């Protein structure tokens, strides 16, 4: 025990806990200067072909994809499909279409799943699988790149 305390005492002053407030402030200031670069993809929200809804506001879309909104206006269950957190389309979708970061979605889902107040979205690995699942699941909503626009699913326009 004595030894360990000695070791702490030997750490130079500038790493001592007393200096940490300054380090925190500097890091925070630096973070405000930090603007991420964006890689643009043309993305499109899609729904099951029978969906009544063809337009959605960004606020409502956020509520849907953070699993807070659970039913469509007609009362049908919403089924959310996403790509994995690190998928480039998922990152672009969160930032460009929803205007939030993927980690915010992950946190929102975890809060729901581990407190019994909601469920996680279903994850698909490819755009082909996304279209396939959206096509066969009533109430489904997801997203694809515009290059892969497919007649068998319905486009959901963001207002």
């Amino acid at each position: 025990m004595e030894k360990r305390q000695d070791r702490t005492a030997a750490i130079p002053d500038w790493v001592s806990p007393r200096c940490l407030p300054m380090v925190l402030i500097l890091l925070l200031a630096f973070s405000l200067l930090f603007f991420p670069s964006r890689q643009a993809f043309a993305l499109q929200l899609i729904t099951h072909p029978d969906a009544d809804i063809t337009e959605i506001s960004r606020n409502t879309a956020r509520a849907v994809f953070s699993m807070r909104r659970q039913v469509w206006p007609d009362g049908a269950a919403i089924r959310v499909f996403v790509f994995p957190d690190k998928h480039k389309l998922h990152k672009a979708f969160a930032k460009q279409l929803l205007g939030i970061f993927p980690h915010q979605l992950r946190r929102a889902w975890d809060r729901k799943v581990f407190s019994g107040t909601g469920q996680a979205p279903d994850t698909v690995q490819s755009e082909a699988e996304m279209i396939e699942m959206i096509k066969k699941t009533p109430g489904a909503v997801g997203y694809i790149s515009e290059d892969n626009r497919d007649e068998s699913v319905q486009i959901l326009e963001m207002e």
Partner: protein
Amino acid sequence: MNRYRFWKWSRRLVLLSWLLPPLATAASLFADENLQIHGFLSQGYTHTSANNWFGDSSNGSWDFRELGLNASYRLTPQLQISGQLLSLTAGEMQDGSLSLDYGLLDYHFANFDNGSIGLRIGRVKTPIGLYNETRDVAFTRPTNFLPQSIYFDKVRNLELSNDGFEIYGDLLTDWGDLLLQGGMGKPVTDENVEYAYLGNDWQGELSADLFFFGRVIYELDGGRIRLSATIADGDLDFEPGPTDPFSNGTTGIQLRVLSFQYNAESWHFTTEYMQEDVISRDLGALQPDGDNTAEGYYLQLVHDLFSDWEIIARYDVSYLNRDDRDGTKQEAGPFGIPAHNMFAKDWTLGLRWDITPAFMVRGEYHWVDGTAWLSSRENNLFQTERHWQMFSLLASYRF
């Protein structure tokens, strides 16, 4: 825990980690899109320079383990049933026995264009601050040990979950979202609550009365900025046993928390401030009638490095009595409890590595001045050391 028990446990954990993912995929075998199964398991190692925290930590303790398994089922589009089993081992404070963490019916009854309202009934997680509802899921908290100023581990059950109901609603506007929760219920208390408020596990019983809970969260840009205010208010009733030195009385508790969080793409700044009134009535001469306010706050900065690493720095301060922050009055009082048991100032530095999305390890180092958050179950408060350090390593798996 000795080495043999450690290896026995790690073998069990490895076995579980092989068994559980197939179990989760088994849910899809039922071919029922309404059923979801999730869970987590964590194993921690704690080493302190002095004092005991989560076991015999001054000799290195493996007595920190969290196992959880939950299921949820959507009975109708608007009605969900869900429950979670939890086993927590935390030194002398938690023995790993199985408990129902939550078990509830969630009825999302009203949906509008710009909001919704719902009701939850059963054992509901208590909404406190930013982290409380998923405090036992290592993936969802910033450090192995949450800031003890607000998320006390020595009386965790008072905050954990409550048997009752909760009404919730959200309002979506162009200036941000408002998320509201309010409810009533009985906190699921245990003997740790008795240790914290009455100093021991007495023959009699300290049980919780109905508490009122309320929390409002304001989120801008889907959570770039999060502001929250929490209140929890209720009484603990003590029914003394024949030899107990307390009489039939109550401990009233009111907890107030304010929270702020800013989330940039790779930076997260969080601060929370807490006050807790503890009001003793009719407990007898050992605990004279009186009002006492505990206070605490922390400042925390997290930075995501690359995509799988995260560093964190935090300063966390707890005072058990804001009118006696340095503890001198307590030390001069009838029991002469050393002053440093009345506060704790904790500097934490931590590093997290998400090896895969489902497997994570995190190490952190704490420099602590004061012992306010140590439990008298694990420590003789007269023999605690004021200045101490802690190293904690934790591996966690989720599915």
